[in-house]
């Protein structure tokens, strides 16, 4: 089985977000970057499936060279090789088109990625890639097993879950508890250094959307404290002051 796992390179979940250049650029200063947490789940399950079936796993990132440490980490976790499409991804459509282009050349059985990136939170790249390749896509996948050419998928739906069986190839957006995050071991880190990381140039595309300006939410007002022994006051305030009840 040939597996492709697409990863994002994103600010750590605890990072404080700010902007520079008159609010037109993210201030990357001092921000630790990580593999997107959802992509990390996808990668972990991908590695497990590869080990079970004896296939290959390629990790793909659309982005610039500052992502290489995260790509190496993915190799240390268990990917066999990596491809980086050397571009500053403009938006979901652009990213998806680059992924689809790589996938067309390599015919993967399974394309895994996180349900969404934690920078733009769009959650649409798997669907776009699926449609561009003319294959089915499902998200958010919480459990995934492969038996021959068929995937059994447990997926979150509004207020519950759905289990479905679908033939490969598939594009899947993943989330927990599909697998436990894997931490690279020493041997993994050593071998990752010599695994191939191929850098390719993007296919050119018309620009669909451009971010213009960033902003931060208005700061919260102060929290009104209510003594615990007068808890019922809260309900009154929610009715008369906040006008919710």
């Amino acid at each position, binding site marked *: 089985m040939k597996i492709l796992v697409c990863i994002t390179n994103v600010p750590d979940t605890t990072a404080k977000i700010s902007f520079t250049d008159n609010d037109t650029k993210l201030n990357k200063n001092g921000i630790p970057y990580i593999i997107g947490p959802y992509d990390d789940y996808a990668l972990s399950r991908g590695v497990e499936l590869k080990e079970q079936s004896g296939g290959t796993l390629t990790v793909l990132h659309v982005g610039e060279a500052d992502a290489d440490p995260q790509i190496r980490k993915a190799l240390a976790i268990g990917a066999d090789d990596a491809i980086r499409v050397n571009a500053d991804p403009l938006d979901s459509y652009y990213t998806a088109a680059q992924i689809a282009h790589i996938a067309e050349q390599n015919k993967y059985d399974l394309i895994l990625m996180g349900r969404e990136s934690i920078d733009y939170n769009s959650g649409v790249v798997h*669907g776009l890639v699926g449609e561009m390749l003319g294959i089915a896509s499902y998200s958010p996948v919480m459990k995934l097993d492969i038996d021959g050419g068929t995937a059994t998928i447990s997926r979150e739906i*509004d207020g519950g879950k759905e289990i479905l069986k*679908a033939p490969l190839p598939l594009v899947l957006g993943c989330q927990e508890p599909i697998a436990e995050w894997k931490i690279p071991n020493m041997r993994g880190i050593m071998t990752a250094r010599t695994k191939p990381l191929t850098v390719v140039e993007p296919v050119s595309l018309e620009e669909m959307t451009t971010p213009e300006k960033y902003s931060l939410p208005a700061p919260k007002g102060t929290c009104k404290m209510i003594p615990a022994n007068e808890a019922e006051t809260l309900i009154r305030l929610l009715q008369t002051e906040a006008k*919710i009840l």
Partner: protein
Amino acid sequence: MSVLIYVELDNGSIKKTSLEAVAYGAKIAEKTGDKVAVLALGKADISELEKAGNYGAGKVLHAADDKLDQENSLAYADVLTQAAHQENSKIIILSKSGLGDAVAARAAAKLKAGIVSGVTGLPEINGSFKVPRGIFTGKAFATTEIKSDIKVLVVKKNAIEMDESSVRTVNADVETFSSVLRDSDFKATIVEVEKAASELSLTEASIIVSGGRGMKGPENWQPLLDLAKALGAATGCSKPVSDLDWRPHHEHIGQTGIKVAPDLYIACGISGAIQHLAGVNGSKCIVVINKDPEAPFFKAADYGIVGDLFEVLPKLTEAVKNLK
């Protein structure tokens, strides 16, 4: 030309978040001079579909093929594309959800349309088309220009103010839409659907009562459930709570779980880690109950009670019951 809105159905009626999307689309159509058309798929109650008119829709295209009764984003995207062609739609709107994103993405790829998901307000249209969107899981916003001819917007809850005055008493005309379904969209077999039928959905609920590790164990949830029941609220939880199987996974709220935007979010025994806050920062009002006055959640709250939740919760429930 029509602004086209895809609506999700729940038991044959249009979901609340989708009605908001209809109102959102109608506001855009006012500016562009377009008509407002809605697409509904699968089994529906016609008198419920007509209600899209109350929110500004002129007509509802209803594709009633029973193959569409079961959620299928592949087929839905196909039908949405067909409707977009028929209506010559340049602006297509969906409400943000797992299904909404999936349908929007596949339709955008078919239509070669620019897509923005997570839209938080109305577009600015004058020569160019710019929409505000939430990014970094609610920690920031971006204004994004969409340059493509066809535009797909996936709109978050509360992207427009909904008040009584935006609701009209006009019904929409419901037309049957005959769609062409492709076998390739039906290759998957659905083995099982588990849905707690009576439960209020977290993304639709206007009040949510949520519990964290401070609840100390699944056997202690009753006081929280009692308050939720008194308020007519849905229940949620923090990640460790669902990881520990104290509560079902679909209640998990936060960065790696569901993002919610209710009018009122009541957090009980949740410390307020940044990853949890990321899932609730769209809430209009936040109440925090925590025994630790230093809990970070108080910084994000509108009202706070420092105290033992097992003493506070029954008092709140009592007070809510006394309201009625």
